[in-house]
Every structure is written in structure tokens, then in C-alpha cells.
């Protein structure tokens, strides 16, 4: 099994430690992982702003980078969802189809493909899960509270394997944090208010760490935590699952 590691642009620049944790975790689990170096961005920031028509070159580059793998794995639900929904090719639609169906967010890859049932990880802290909307309602990583359907949660399933970790219960388990791509600056006031309210839900319920499958949400929540000099930290789920503290 050959896996191509897809590291979204802002993760590459701002959160290399999450990308490193993803790589190390996959290798620990015996996966042959390669990082194609010529990656830029999946095109989501443009597409979500209404400029999907400008993303063809990003798409072509993505196809070029990831055509040779059995699976493509990324530590970002949002970027994975974008690729799944919007990756197209004018010249090789079959390749685009195949890539769209072989791209996985890390947690779903671990649960659905590798079927991981134990992890040698330790993280002795109280942790709140921030459900990224794209992970939850786009990739169905967990059951959303809106539906009358059986509950499940892939992130919880994995976090339960981590030694010493205690999950905190939130008042609103799957409300949006307000990041929303360019929304976070175009609608700054609403975005920040949403983020502050999410942070409060975690802190008042005793979380020491907020984790998520999406660093974009975490970057937003972390920005608010740090501005308010909070001791609570934001950490990507890969870093917890790879942790041996």
C-alpha cells in the first residue's frame, strides 16, 4: 500500500509539527508514506469564495502530484472534502474520479482503511473535541446532532485508545467554530463571536486541550485562546495519537 501524504498549504507553513506527527504515526502503523514535494493548495480558499473557475491549475497540479498512489491521506478534513467534491480534470476525468475516491482524512483512514484497534499513545490530559463541520457533515466522521440516527464517532473511537486521555463533555458537541475560510476575515465580528463561544464551551467544561481533525478551526480557536492569554491549548488530533508523553 503506497500512500501519498497531502499536506495543505497553511499546515505546511504554520503547523509542520502536525504534519510531522501525521507522517510518523502512519509510519509507526507500517504504512509506506511519501510526501510529493511539489504541493501547493487544493484550491479551496478560492472555490469557497466563489472563484472555483480559477482552480483548474491547482487541480491539475494535485492530479500530477498524487496520480501514483493507492491512497492519499491528509490531516485536514476540510481540504479532503474539497478534493472529494470539486477535483476535476479537463483532460483525464477518470484519473480525477479515482483520486477523488482515494483521498482520505487521517482519522477516517485510520479507522476505515487501516482499521486501527490499538495505539501506543499516551496523553494524560482533559481534552475537548472540536468537530470540524467538514469532517462531521461532509465526511461523516461522526454522527451529527441534527439527524435522528445512530451515534458513532471515529475521532472518539481513536482517542479512547490513548492512555490517560479524558474526554470532556460539551454543551454543544458539534457547533461550528466560525472559521469558515475567508468568512473569518470577511465576517470578522461573527467569526470571532462564534469562536469565543466555542472556546468558552470547552474551557467551562474543563478542557486543557482542544483537538480537531482540522487545523483551520484550531488556528482560529488558538488565535482567540492566545489573545485571551488562556492556558488551554489547541492541538491537532494527529499529535495526540502520535504522542508518547
Amino acid at each position, binding site marked *: 500500500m503506497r500512500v501519498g501524504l497531502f499536506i495543505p498549504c497553511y499546515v505546511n507553513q504554520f503547523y509542520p*509539527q502536525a504534519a*510531522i506527527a501525521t507522517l510518523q504515526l502512519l509510519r509507526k502503523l507500517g504504512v509506506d508514506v511519501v510526501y510529493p*514535494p511539489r504541493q501547493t493548495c487544493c484550491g479551496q480558499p478560492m472555490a469557497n469564495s466563489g472563484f472555483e473557475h480559477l482552480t483548474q491549475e491547482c487541480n491539475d497540479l494535485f492530479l500530477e502530484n498524487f496520480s501514483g498512489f493507492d491512497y492519499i491521506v491528509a490531516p485536514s478534513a476540510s481540504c479532503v472534502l474539497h478534493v472529494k467534491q470539486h477535483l476535476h480534470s479537463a483532460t483525464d476525468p477518470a484519473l480525477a474520479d479515482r483520486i477523488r475516491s482515494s483521498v482520505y482524512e487521517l482519522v477516517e483512514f485510520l479507522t476505515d482503511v487501516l482499521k486501527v484497534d490499538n495505539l501506543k499513545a499516551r496523553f494524560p490530559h482533559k481534552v475537548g473535541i472540536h468537530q470540524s463541520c467538514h469532517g462531521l*457533515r461532509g465526511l461523516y466522521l461522526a454522527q451529527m446532532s441534527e439527524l435522528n440516527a445512530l451515534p458513532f464517532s471515529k475521532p472518539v473511537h481513536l482517542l479512547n485508545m490513548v492512555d490517560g486521555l479524558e474526554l470532556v463533555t460539551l454543551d454543544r458537541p458539534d457547533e461550528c467554530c466560525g472559521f469558515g475560510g475567508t468568512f473569518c*476575515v470577511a465576517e470578522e465580528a461573527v*467569526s470571532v463571536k462564534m469562536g469565543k463561544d466555542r472556546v468558552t464551551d470547552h474551557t467551562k467544561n474543563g478542557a486543557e486541550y482542544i483537538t480537531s481533525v482540522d487545523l483551520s478551526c484550531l488556528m482560529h480557536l488558538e488565535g*482567540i485562546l*492566545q*489573545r485571551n492569554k488562556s492556558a488551554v491549548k489547541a492541538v491537532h488530533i494527529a499529535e495526540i495519537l502520535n504522542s508518547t508523553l
Partner: protein
Amino acid sequence: MEKQTKDHAALAEAFIQDEEHVNWHDGALWWIRQKRDIASKQIPEWEALREAASQIKSNVLSNLHDYLVQFEANAIKNGIKVHWAADAEEHNAIVYSILKEKDIRQMVKSKSMLTEECHLNEYLIERGVDVINSDLGEYIQQLDNEPPSHIVLPCIHKRKEEIGELFHEHLGTEKGVSDPTLLTRVARGHLRNVFVTRRAALTGVNFAVAETGEYVVCTNEGNADMGAHLSEVQIASMGLEKIVPLKKHLGVFLRLLARSATGQPITIYSSHFKKPREGQEMHLILVDYGRSRQLGRPEFRDSLKCIRCGACMNTCPVYRKSGGLSYHNTISGPIGAILAPNLDMKKHADLPFASTLCGSCSNVCPVKINIHDQLYQWRQVIVREGYAANTKVLSMKAMAWTLSSPTSYSTMGRAGRWVLNNIPFAVNNKFNPWYKQREMPDGPKESFGEWYAKNNG
């Protein structure tokens, strides 16, 4: 009301200034969302009902022409006078002509989003016809000369003290009285007097049954019925899309509507109007006003499935934090943001962007409208049609150019973290809205790409 100087972001920012009030607003609507969750989870076949409702509406849209003709024929057979209006102006003119013929100068109106869309009240008042909204929330909004901020809860953005002040000013209640029961009793007294003195009553329509030519109006207050059954002229205004094919389909929709809206098992009153009362005239106006055009937009036509329950507003975190009036449109919230651009794309170009695309709306929607996908699609259309700000177009083109080439990307990345300077949510300078209330991420020594090249080269 037509005047618009600020967009959603600016109006929302103003709303958010009073944080305690926003917290109340957010909590009140979240509570309704929770009641909706509890109600929906009491019905094991809930998701199947949503699917059935969505399919019935798909069928309606695909046969709308025939159903309209069938409904009209049956309604006429029942003794209802049917009118057709292409737009707001025609609709308003029809209402006025019906009243004028009977020399009626006062009308009572129950909740009808369509007549709000058409600005019927202003139209009639200009022509010397007095209109009173009888739904309590809409009555309060009318006293304050403000449009409704929510389709089900018209004055949810107001505190009881503000309402008490309005009642003091307009209805002569004692200053400082803000108890909801007391205020409701006062309004009940005033409006009872209105009901018994009005010769004409107008209602909206929730569902119109093609098979039988009857229409259903749902309220909790009983105001539609109080107006209709005491009037000599009854008028119903309905959008073309309100048709259901068969009467039995009402069972599906009425099971979903109130549970989705407020968590009630059914609205208190579900009134089925088929024939006029003896001696009464019953008029029904079928209004297009952009609906046939929306029907012709494949990616947006499912918005016409909406049954106006308001669940998408209650669940929408953006709506809850920004208030309905920030959408500067009769129908606010997520559903309003996908309906409004059809009517005036330029004026409402900001609305599809007033969302994080979190998808909660689509999943509470009782008729399964893919609201968040349509928000995404409207963004594409608005940009394509040239309604995006020029600065945005330039920055997006620059971004696309940089990201399309790994060389330009990594060069820019090394030369000071291109992303840090160019990704819209990461521009690190004092003009950057990100930085107003949030810290920037710490810039690491090296990118993952650089680390990987060193350690795996």
C-alpha cells in the same frame, strides 16, 4: 425598508456590539433547536419522513404546471375566486382592487411572508387602506416600523423591555411593564377589537392541495382564523410553490412542520379552507414573483421546496450571532440567503457569503434542501456575474496564479512565508481583520516541506 447602506458583515458587527443581548438571542434560538431535536427524535421514522417530504416536493416542482391548473380548477369549483400575479406590484394591485370594490378601508392580516416580500402594507397604507398585522410578533414589529427578523419568531431579536416600551408608547400600558403574559393580554384586547371590526382579512398559505382545491393555514395564535371567520372578504396570498398533490400528503408535512419549527407536535391550528362561508367572498392570489425563474435554475430550484419552518435559522450559528435583520431581506438566515439572490443578485450579493458552510441547515431542513451547497453555488454565480468586489477578484487571481505553480509558491514561501502574507485569513498586518481579536499562529522555523527535504531527502 428598501434602503440598504450596509452589508451583512457590517450589520452583524453592529448587532454583536451588545454581547449580552447576542448571548441571549443565541441561547433562545439554540433552545428552540434543542426542542426540535427532542421532537424529531420521538419519531422513529423521522428521517424517512424528511425524505418523503423532499420527494413529494420534487414531484411538485416537476409537475407544477399541471398541479397549478388542477388546483385552480378545484378551487374555482369550491367557490374560491382565483387570481394570478406575476410580481409584487400585481399582487398588491389585486388586493387593493378587491378591497376597493367593497369600499373597505381597513384590513387585518395574519402572518404571510409573501406579503412582506411584496411590501403589501406600505402599498395599501399609501392608498389609504389601514392594515394591521395580527400575529403578535408581527404586530410588535409593525408598531416598531421594522420588518420581521425571523419567519416564525418575528421579534425574537427584541428584549421584553423594548416591547414594553413600545406598548407604553402605542397602547398606553404603564411605563416599565414588561411581563410577557401582561403584554400579551393587552395585545389580545386590542386585537380582539380589530378582529370584530374588520370586514376584510388576509392570510398566507402553508399548503394548497391540488386534488381538492383547499388550502391550509397554520398558526399557534388563532389569528388567521379570528380574521377569516369574522370577515366578509377573505383573501389568501400564496406563492406558486405551496402546492401539494394529494390531501394525504398533508400528513407528512404537518408532522414535520411544527416539530421542525418549534418542537411542537403540531401547530395549535391547522385550518383547511375549502369554500367560502355563506355570504362571504373568498379570494386566492397565486403569486409567481421570481418563483418560475428560480424553478429554471437547476442548482437552486430545490430552494422552492421550503415550507418556512425556520429550522435553518434556529440552527445557523451565523444567524444566531448576527440577528435576522442583518440579512436585510424579508426571509433571513440560510434559506433567505439562497432565495434572495434570485430576486436581486446585486442587492443580495453579500448573503451567500454570510455563512461558514457548516451544513447544519441542510441537515435540519424537513424537506432536505441542500442549503449549504446552494450557498456555495450562489457564490460561484455571483462572482461569475460580476458582483464580487474588484479587490477580491484581483487577490483571488493572484492567489490562483501563485498556487498553480510549485516554484512560485515555494519561492514566495521562503521569501517570508507567502501564505502568511497572502492567504486572506492570514495576512499579517494591522489592517488584517484576523488580528483584531485573534493572535496569528507562531511562524515555525521551517515548513513541513523543508523539514521533509532535510529528513527524508
